[in-house]
């Protein structure tokens, strides 16, 4: 009998030993003359259980995890290897509560299929979205995306369909689809998971976008910190080309471009500058990229998850997607629980889930077992939330109303050992490290802000320096060209507002330094 096993090849699973487990399984099977078929998949996103391996049974896929190399001999024993009575057995994968309570639309296939098998992709509903788009026609496809209510998942929350309509309505000899895969926010990994675990989904989404707006060339701009994603996407593009799903026959060409370690290139105009072969400096808007984008041509620039949400919207109809959600945030959001949280992983759910439910119920509190003190939502430019705001629903507007943002859906949990003055300082320091240098508030304000925060940490003229920081944050917020300078005040001011006790420190003696 052949045992069919699924072992993730996702970078995070590899980072905790998935490759070693796969090798140990092969070796142990050889010793015991067992025939194994190992399929390397993406990750299901239950990272605290990684490496999580699954075994195909008549009853569905049964999961085991976290599996270490030392567990392998014990799993492959007796008449029935992978016994359900093994202590690492988690039961049927779909029945694990963390997975069961999700609404997986964009991540429907991730962790289940072989990422580089087009046959697998099609067997699990792949390319149905593109087929329906072709049946509907280009302009009806754009309207379908508008109707779905899909908004930019990179963080800005601009309606994706409106962007597409603007590009579709702009005439030009050449148009581009650019996928922003420069996922630089700490606490986020949804783009990486899709590119590594379901790359054809992104290819299909971009092909639909190209068809809808009349663009024949697409670029996926992936950050260099994601070598695995680069490799998988490049390979997937070659496979799609070989089957005529990309290239001349398909009327759409796709190419991967690799970033070079600049956070600011996640800002769309800076990304376009980088793609054109220049320093990634932000452009002033207008003109909008939809009118004058890459090489001055009308360009759709969307985040990975925005584009990866499109195939399901087309395949199942806009209404199905729009029926989910909260307020003006329609559909689902892949929320990424990260940092000091027990059940760290990807949780796709309709908008509206409260922060408390995410952190306490889904996330199970901190990994260290200490009390949760602060939660940063939306990456390094997102606000820090105290427990008092845990009733906030996951929604673009609700977070904006609290001087925060949902950003790309990253949720980083901190326990009670966190020093919020240090976190505020880091936000300013990060802005200084990553500033593109084009506008003064960001370039200089971030440096002066870091120095001022150092004085606060040393207990020097606290009130005066806090007033200075507050004033500086106003300048950053209203005077910066892009979100890097413009939103750095969110983590800084939220830390000061919600955790004031951390900013009033005794004066450090100079000798103590």
């Amino acid at each position: 009998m052949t045992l069919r096993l699924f072992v993730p090849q996702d970078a995070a699973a590899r980072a905790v030993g998935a490759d070693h487990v796969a090798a140990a399984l092969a070796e142990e099977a050889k010793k015991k003359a067992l025939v194994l078929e190992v399929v390397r998949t993406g990750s299901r996103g239950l990272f605290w259980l990684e490496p999580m391996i699954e075994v195909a049974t008549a009853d569905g896929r049964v999961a085991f995890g976290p599996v270490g190399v030392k567990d392998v001999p014990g799993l492959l024993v007796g008449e029935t290897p992978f016994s359900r009575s093994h202590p690492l057995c988690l039961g049927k994968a779909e029945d694990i509560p963390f997975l069961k309570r999700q609404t997986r639309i964009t991540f429907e296939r991730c962790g289940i299929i072989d990422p580089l098998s087009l046959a697998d992709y099609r067997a699990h509903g792949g390319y149905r979205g593109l087929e329906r788009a072709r049946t509907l026609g280009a302009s009806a496809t754009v309207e379908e995306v508008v109707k779905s209510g899909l908004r930019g998942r990179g963080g800005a929350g601009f309606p994706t369909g409106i962007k597409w309509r603007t590009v579709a309505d702009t005439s030009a000899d050449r148009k581009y689809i650019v996928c922003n895969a420069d996922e630089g926010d700490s606490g986020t990994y949804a783009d990486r998971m899709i590119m590594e675990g379901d790359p054809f989904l992104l290819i299909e989404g971009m092909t639909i976008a190209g068809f809808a707006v009349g663009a024949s060339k697409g670029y996926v701009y992936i950050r260099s910190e994601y070598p695995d994603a680069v490799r998988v996407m490049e390979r997937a593009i070659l496979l799609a080309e070989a089957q005529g799903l990309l290239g001349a026959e398909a009327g759409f060409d796709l190419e991967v471009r690799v970033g070079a370690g600049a956070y600011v290139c996640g800002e769309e105009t800076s990304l376009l500058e980088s793609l054109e072969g220049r320093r990634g400096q932000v452009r002033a808007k207008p003109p909008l990229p939809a009118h004058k984008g890459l090489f001055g041509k009308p360009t759709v620039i969307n985040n990975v998850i925005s584009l990866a949400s499109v195939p399901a919207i087309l395949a199942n109809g806009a209404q199905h997607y729009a029926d989910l959600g909260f307020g003006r945030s329609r559909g689902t959001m892949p929320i990424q629980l990260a940092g000091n949280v027990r059940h760290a992983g990807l949780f796709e759910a309709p908008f509206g889930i409260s922060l408390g439910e995410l952190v306490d119920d889904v996330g199970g509190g901190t990994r260290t077992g200490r009390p949760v003190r602060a939660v940063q939502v939306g990456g390094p430019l997102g606000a820090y939330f105290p427990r008092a705001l845990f009733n906030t629903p996951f929604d673009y507007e609700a977070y904006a109303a609290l001087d925060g943002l949902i950003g790309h859906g990253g949720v980083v949990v901190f326990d009670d050992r966190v020093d919020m003055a240090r976190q505020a300082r880091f936000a300013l320091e990060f802005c200084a490290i990553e500033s593109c240098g084009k506008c003064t508030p960001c370039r200089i304000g971030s440096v002066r802000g870091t120095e001022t925060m150092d004085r606060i940490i040393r207990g020097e003229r606290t009130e005066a320096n806090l007033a200075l920081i507050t004033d500086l944050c106003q300048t950053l917020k209203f005077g910066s060209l892009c979100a890097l300078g413009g939103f750095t005040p969110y983590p800084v001011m939220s830390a000061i507002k919600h955790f004031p006790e951390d900013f009033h420190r005794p004066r450090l003696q100079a000798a103590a330094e």
Partner: protein
Amino acid sequence: MPEGTASPEAEAIRIIALHKGREGALLPILHDLQSTFGFITPATVRLVAEALNLTRAEVHGAVSFYHDFREQPAGRHVVKLCRAEACQSMDGEDVARHVLERFGVDWGETTPDGRVTVEATYCLGLCACAPSALIDGQPMARLTPQSVDEIAREVER
């Protein structure tokens, strides 16, 4: 670079020619040059500028803007430690301090024997298994001072 073939200059010219016709060729060229030679010299900057009809200032501007591009060679092993918030929340800064002390270097420095360069990075997308690092391009996570010591022993070999 393969030994005994072309001179470094000829090799650089060959790499530049490979990408020259592409839209926005500069970044692919710089990536390729760096993966071949390990860093970007002023001489290569000149070659790239000539080929792409750019000024040397424009090419140098791009090289110096992006954190990835080096103007000095790195150590034989490159350890990129994540210093962003998710890793901070899991004591990543303690692990980082341990690594820097162990190798006796500061951020961005290379050990005197040229074996290891330690660099800061801001997010590797391994935030659910923090703290994390990229060691010679291989992802490593759930790092502790102990696991880092094991990795260091491998690297030092």
